[in-house]
């Protein structure tokens, strides 16, 4: 199955802008998907989610928030869109 990932914002002192569709095994959980995606995105997602409350609060699956403790039990489906966002100052 293919899942689109948006990972964006300042994470661990780097500006990340990642937008890609990735092929994942069927039934893959969000937690597993994050392990696979972090190398490609160039950011240690697990560390970032552990350190930043606001990023941990900004994990979305198809536009709805997924709480951090539910990442392991949330399975992805073909065509899903996952976002991990770090807020940026507006003006």
């Amino acid at each position, binding site marked *: 199955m293919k899942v*689109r990932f*948006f990972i964006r*914002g300042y994470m661990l002192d780097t*500006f990340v802008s990642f937008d890609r569709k990735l092929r994942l095994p069927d039934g893959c959980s969000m937690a597993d998907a994050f392990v696979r995606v972090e190398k490609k995105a160039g950011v240690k997602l697990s560390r970032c989610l552990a350190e930043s409350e606001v990023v941990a*609060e900004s994990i*979305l699956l198809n536009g709805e928030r997924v709480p951090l403790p539910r990442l392991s039990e949330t399975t992805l489906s073909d065509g899903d869109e996952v*976002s991990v966002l770090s*807020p940026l*100052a*507006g003006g």
Partner: protein
Amino acid sequence: MTTMPPPEADPPGNHDNDRAPGTPPGERAAGGVAGKLLWVDLSEKRSWEEVVSPEVSRAFLGGYGLGAWALYRNLEPGTDPLSADNIFGIVAGTLTGYGTPFSGRSQIVSRSPLTGTWADSNSGGAIAGQLKRCGYDGLFVRGCADSPTALIIRDGKVSFEDATDLWGLTTFEATDRLAERLDREKTGFSVIGPAGEKQSLIAAVINDRYHAWGRQGFGAILGSKKLKAIAVQGSGQVPLAHPAAFKALCEEINLPYREAHSLLVRFMAYVMKTNRFMGFVYRMITKLGLKLPVGGNQAPMIRTWRKMGTTSAVSVSTENGDAPVKNWTGAGSKDFPLSTKAYKVSDEAVQRYIDRSLSCGDCPLVCKGVVSVKDGAYKTDQVRRPDYETLCGFGANMLNDNLESVVMCHHICNNYGMDAVSAAATLGMVAELYEKGVLTIDELDGVDLRWGNAEAIVEMTRKMATREGCGDLFADGSAKAAERLGTDGAREAAVHVHGQEPAYHDPKFSMSMGTGYVADPTPGRHTTGNASWNESFGMKLPLPDAKPATVEAASVGLRSYEGKGEAQRIWSNHHQALNGSGLCMFSQLTGGLPYSRLINAATGWDMTDDEFLDAGERIQNMRHAFNVREGIKPADFKAHPRMTGEVPLKHGPLAGVKVDQQKLKDMYFDAMDWDRESGRVSADRAKALGIEETLADLVG
């Protein structure tokens, strides 16, 4: 309260300034500040000077602080903001006027015609720096001209010039016309457009073509005084107490920004400067504001901010819920998704239209831009790049992914002199009422203001800016429009705090942002300093030498209420000290500047970071006390139920989220030692800050 008497009447006309009676020459600071204000009466066409004591300069700094000090003493409570009696002041910060990094900013203060409260705004623009070079820390204007007037100040000389030929012109046209006879490079221009002339309560004042004192209706104040433009040219130099130390500090600050360019680029810059012909090319490049490419091991924040400024935040904020959409009824991730819509009005998409970068002046970061749309229905030439608020307002909020139309809406706002935040929010209200059938297409003069209809959005923006047809109904913002429509539905759809629309940051996402909306003396504003700098953006208080307990208390959790009142107190005080210094809030993005050391090198003072924060607290108290004196009660500033989640969102990351805005406001009031009911300042705190005499009638 002491009201400064005007000097004896002089014959009208152009003349040099007089010293106001009762203002002894006093001892000035060793540098940095002028120690003088210029006062102008438009009715009587005369001007005079007021000396500011060094104690006042140090206690209140400049900018909003000095402005609040001057207005509190001179503006009678109950003054109609659009009357001749109202006063506005353009005030320079302590660090303005002599090349301090991030100091190309100008500040304005008055009483707002939109909210009836204290009003201030901090914008890019050269006018405050020019005032400093004329020998003034601020210009205060009262009275009303009998015909359209341009106030021209060259060093100490004040002229009241006929501006009949400028009346009716857009801000671009009027600025360019003035620049034909006043050197653009050496003059600060503040101009109103047709919206200000027609006293739209959301009218703005535009500085140097591209920067706006946008919020709270300053354009209407100038319009009510028939003051089309102010132009200031100063040829003096501001003396500094310790010039070598000051220069070294500026070098230290600018270094990381310079190093954000790659080695190759820095080598190119060096070669170009030292070679005569290439030196000319280099000067032309930098004069035109073109950026040398950025590369190498630069700090990501500097690189991103320099390239995209606040536009980089749009798609993320729309998706994560920070930016409200569909007049606060939708969820960006559902109604304007990042993958299909939001990216079209964000960061890289905006970059495609960039002609050149734009700075407020004296800025090592240079985060603004000038754009052109080369052809099509929304063709524009060299206009200000829309930034976060405008892209969210005319884009995401209106479910409009046509970026060129957003550029046009923003340009209409700047060119006609109207606040883009309030204008876009008012459009959102109108679109909602149209969708619900409360307003018909006939009542909208045939404009089909459906969500996302770019053509209609541009047309209605133009109508509001010119008060044409139905535009007149909406030209004073959503609260006034709802009042005129007089229905519950309209009142429900008007999202505002005490008359002013909040910015595009949802308190349900960042709760401290909401505290600012309802507890700062300028309701609905997001640039007043609040703990969301830490809460959402993870920044540490950029005052390393402040008491460790203060730095620690400025850090808070995202969803917890714990410590939020004290954190808000610290951040708002810090922000007001920044305003008093005359600096841009984005100087904090990369860890802040050595603020008090800069002030000391310029003025010869020995200010500590803690004293800097105290000055901010003094400023915040003065701004607040102004409202208390006007009889405004804390309870008057209410968050709209859509802002708090009392009317919950059904979808998206903030679905069902509620925030107790009253609790946060009470916590902030407690931390500031302000009475929750009356707003009065505690006697102990006022005494500790040395403002107990100034606020004698409001303390206790």
